[in-house]
């Protein structure tokens, strides 16, 4: 097993784009956590002397301010932190649900599998946005709900991938050995199936994070996600899109950060897939 990981790390290191993406991504993450401490401005303070001022070094707001005079740099970092947190937590939710669901369906098989996959098929037939809109409408808007709802829909593809992998793992000798030595189904799934899923799961999880960040920004853009005065990248972009003509930087700063973050996550995920040699589908 350790040889496998060493090989994978080496292959990843040999991929300069993926390494660059990882570094840039880590920098953005680090900045979003510690950056606000190093700025004299706060994310919610209004500076009425500098309303919608353009980026520049002549005042304290290097990346400019928004329509209410709030520092765009600090706000974008705070928004990035919210978006990242949602991306990571919702991915975790989708991991837990998707792995358990997919492993059970794939391992138990037969009628159970058929029924469980049919449910996924029906759920995937709906544009996911409907679910989230309904859930936000029913339970009200808030970050806690966002974690849950986005994670709750993100598990569908994960479950499919896990099921496919489980189907082939089930045929392997070590499973037969486990059955022969008297292990029960739950024990086999937890101890023998799930640990062997780790490669494709890691790759797909890395590619899920940008999808969820994108989805969260999309919801926040529609006004269904994070609410003022809190910010996520989506709400900042929504605000910026309205000011494009007079103050394009209000759009370009958070938009650029979101684009860079998603780009890095995607490139890194692709690199990881090549390194771990995971086949798509």
């Amino acid at each position, binding site marked *: 097993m350790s040889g496998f990981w060493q090989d994978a790390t080496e292959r990843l290191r040999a991929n300069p784009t993926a390494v660059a993406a990882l570094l840039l991504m880590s920098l953005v993450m680090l900045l979003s956590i510690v950056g606000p401490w190093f700025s004299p401005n706060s994310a919610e303070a209004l500076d009425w002397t500098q309303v919608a001022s353009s980026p520049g070094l002549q005042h304290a707001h290097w990346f400019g301010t928004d329509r209410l005079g709030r520092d765009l740099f600090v706000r974008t970092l705070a928004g990035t932190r919210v978006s990242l947190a949602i991306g990571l937590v919702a991915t975790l939710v989708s991991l837990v649900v998707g792995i358990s669901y997919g492993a059970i369906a794939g391992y138990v098989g037969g009628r159970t599998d058929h029924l469980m996959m049919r449910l996924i098929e*029906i759920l995937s*037939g*709906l*544009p*996911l*946005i*409907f679910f989230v*809109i*309904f859930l936000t*409408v*029913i339970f009200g808007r808030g970050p806690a709900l966002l974690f849950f709802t986005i994670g709750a829909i993100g598990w569908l593809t994960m479950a499919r991938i896990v099921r496919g992998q489980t189907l082939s793992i089930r045929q392997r000798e070590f499973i037969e050995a486990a059955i022969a030595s008297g292990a029960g189904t739950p024990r086999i799934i937890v101890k023998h199936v799930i640990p062997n899923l780790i490669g494709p799961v890691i790759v797909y999880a890395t590619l899920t994070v*940008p999808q969820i960040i*994108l989805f969260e*920004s*999309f919801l926040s*853009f*529609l*006004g*269904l996600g994070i609410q003022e005065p809190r910010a996520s990248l989506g709400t900042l*972009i*929504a605000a*910026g*899109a309205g000011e*494009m*003509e007079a103050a*394009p930087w209000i*759009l*370009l700063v958070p*938009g650029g950060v*979101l*684009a860079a973050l*998603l*780009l890095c*996550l*995607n*490139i890194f995920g*692709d690199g990881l897939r090549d390194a771990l040699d995971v086949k*798509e*589908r």
Partner: protein
Amino acid sequence: MIGYFFKRLAGAIPTLLIIITATFFLMRAAPGGPFDQEQTLPPEIVANLQSAYGLDQPIWTQYGRYLGSLLHGDFGPSFKYKDFTVTELIAQGFPVTLELGVIAILLALLIGIPLGIYAALRHNLAADHASMSVAVIGIAVPSFVVLPFLGLVFGIKLHWLPVAGWEPDSLRYLVLPVIALALPPLAYIARMTRGSLLEVMRSDFIRTARAKGLPLHSIVLTHALRPALLPVAGYLVPAVAAIMTGSLVVESIAGLPGIGRYLVQGALNRDYTLVLGMVIIYSTLLIGMGLLVDLLYVWLDPRVRQQ
């Protein structure tokens, strides 16, 4: 083959019914109602409104009535747009949304597939790396960032195209929204085409074709392309879903009078019938696309025909 198609068609009906039922009861489970406004109405008026719309009936009666009117092609009255029925609202907005979506998906296919082929034939050369890097950008950057950016460059700076707005029969207003909407699926299709074409080009029957001395273009176009397009066909349903979702924001940024706005507004206003109508339209489109893809599979992969 035809029997198979009808079997799939029959299978789509329960799916649609489940979707309608789930939406109906989920919407009703939400707190609040369509007549909650900023100034509270006197209870007598609310009671009158509710009975006028049949909302005072038991929920199962309402459900039955709704399904009954659906069978007659009637989506019911809108609760918020009082002078309109849902059918009228959808009939007004849907052509715009459809035009936007159809052009976007065609653009994604007509540029994405050739780009993927080109990249595959230039495998590991500069042109391949360049087009695939651009494709990653296309996948990663969301339409609600691309569209305002395009508007900034081509609308505000260069004055070539309108930033937002709409005139019937004028395609000028659709150019930027279509590009923003088509970019992610275009990039994705290009990447998929490249990947699967590379895989097909390594297979035995292609080696045979090469050994026969066929020119490259005929190997690719008559032998390799059809099997290579199978995953692309499979991606069409998610692509349509992505374009639908994308058009929700693109329409609002570009000020297009499509139906995108009704979904979110309708859900927030508890405009039950409007939301149901939207869900039905969107899911029917998706399910229909799924059926179309099944037919495409038959054409692309002769093995399916024998099953």
